[in-house]
């Protein structure tokens, strides 16, 4: 199933709740912005991954929990968590 902007945002919130073990109510949606990314890993490759070097449009999703900001990136095929404890993660595609 392809992601829509709202699907991707909902999936990002769900991932963050599970990842941090916090209640859904404490996750703040800071911004969801359409953006061009440098490649098809949305500029957030994981280890051992190669990606097509085509400028790709998707969404940058910024969520807040307490004073921390978490960045997700998504397009219709995938959702990624960027630089979480120094690593990128592919959440789903």
């Amino acid at each position: 199933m392809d992601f829509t902007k709202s699907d991707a945002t909902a999936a990002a919130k769900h991932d963050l709740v599970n990842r941090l073990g916090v209640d859904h109510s404490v996750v703040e949606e800071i911004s969801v912005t359409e953006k061009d990314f440098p490649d098809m890993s949305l500029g957030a490759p994981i280890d051992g991954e190669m990606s097509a070097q085509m400028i790709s449009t998707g969404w940058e999703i910024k969520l807040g929990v307490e004073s921390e900001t978490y960045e997700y990136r998504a397009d219709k095929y995938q959702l990624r968590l960027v630089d979480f404890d120094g690593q990128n993660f592919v959440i789903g595609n």
Partner: protein
Amino acid sequence: MNRNNIWIHVGIAVVLITLAAVLGQIRLWETTLRSAITPSNETLRTVSTYSDRDKRSISSEPEVLVHFKPGVSLAQIKQIAARNNDLMDDNYEAVKGWVSIDDLDNADADATAKQYAAMSEFVDYAEPNYEIRLDPENSVGSKDANYRTGSGQPNDPRFAEQWALNNLGKNGGKELADIGALHAWTKTQGSEQVVVAVLDSGVDYTHEDLVANMWTRPDSVPEYNDEELGSFDDVHGFDADANADDPMDDNGHGTHCAGIIGAEGDNAKGVVGINWNVSIMPLKFLGRGGFGTTKNAIEAINYAIDRKQKGVNVRVINASWGSTQYSRALEDAIRAAGEQGILFVAAAGNNGTDNDKRAHYPSNYNLPNVISVAALDRTDSMASFSNFGVKTVHIAAPGREILSTWLGDAYREASGTSMAAPYVSGVAALILASEPNLSVAKLRERILGSVDKIPSLESKVASGGRLCAADAIGLRH
């Protein structure tokens, strides 16, 4: 009067009349030619038969060419010009009677020509001297301007949007900021004997503009058999992502790259590839999202090597992908491909950074069969997103707003060094179409040694220039 003298005079008169008639006819033909064309830059640049006399007017103000009747002296011509407040600008000794008139009132050239033509007592013909504007770059580089309009163009309806092949300066572009494809096509339009592997997200091998140029395994070549992966009925290529025999594209990226290399030419559909004819072998390792594993990339390269060893003429692998992670195994696989005579063309990456300082792979592998490609926009400027590196990025090619094939018989524009690399792969295939036995070293040398030098690229890429198809196949311009 002596009878003999009369015949001599009659003879001279006949010769003069004949000469005048011939000259008059030539001018009539020239006038017809001029009236048939629009005096715009683009059109005038295509007329290659103008004489030196025409070219002399390049830098002058608009003027009128007048042919005076025999017997009208230079002094009389000067008097006539002075009466009209004009200046006799030039007298063409080689063609007696022709002078150019500069109108000091700066009147419309057509009106001035009519004014002189009306003096039928003295004047045979008068016409505006249409100015031929030579683009400074055109005159300096003497580019392939003669091939840019008119005959020789493919009938693919969206060819006019393919600025990378024939840049006429539209949509904010810069004239001649392209790879000189039209000139190159006068020598070769590709060959189905040359196989280019598109190592990517697969290729939509049913696309209306690609289907005729897709590789299919000939009966003489056995099915692919890998000791670990098993056997595959690889009619269309190989899918290393799913370990399957169907490399159908489910993303679009590979189909876009394939169209740049070899969308069928002159088929009255969509776009045209650099090669009107070629054999594209789809190798899929990028999944639906456009990303994949290094391991699967290696599996796909091994497939290409195996097919080469079984007799398939795979000469180029296009790699419009990458990351910053080094892999010795991937490097070895690409080296092995080189040892089989396969050129490996790789995208330099889209982070806008210097690959000399922060490596991008596979483009940064220092191997004799690797070409790393940066992206240019339609003004010959490096695209803002493009990686560069005077030591590690070898050449630049068009890579912004590139129209090509997409899934489901569609077409779309895309940007990235992903789009620049296939231009180099395509030109490599074009070279091999006419020089099939060229070694991979010579092929690489030819491509990098035939660039159009661009000053702004001297500090950005090793060759200091943009890909030039015409020069690469041996057509100096």
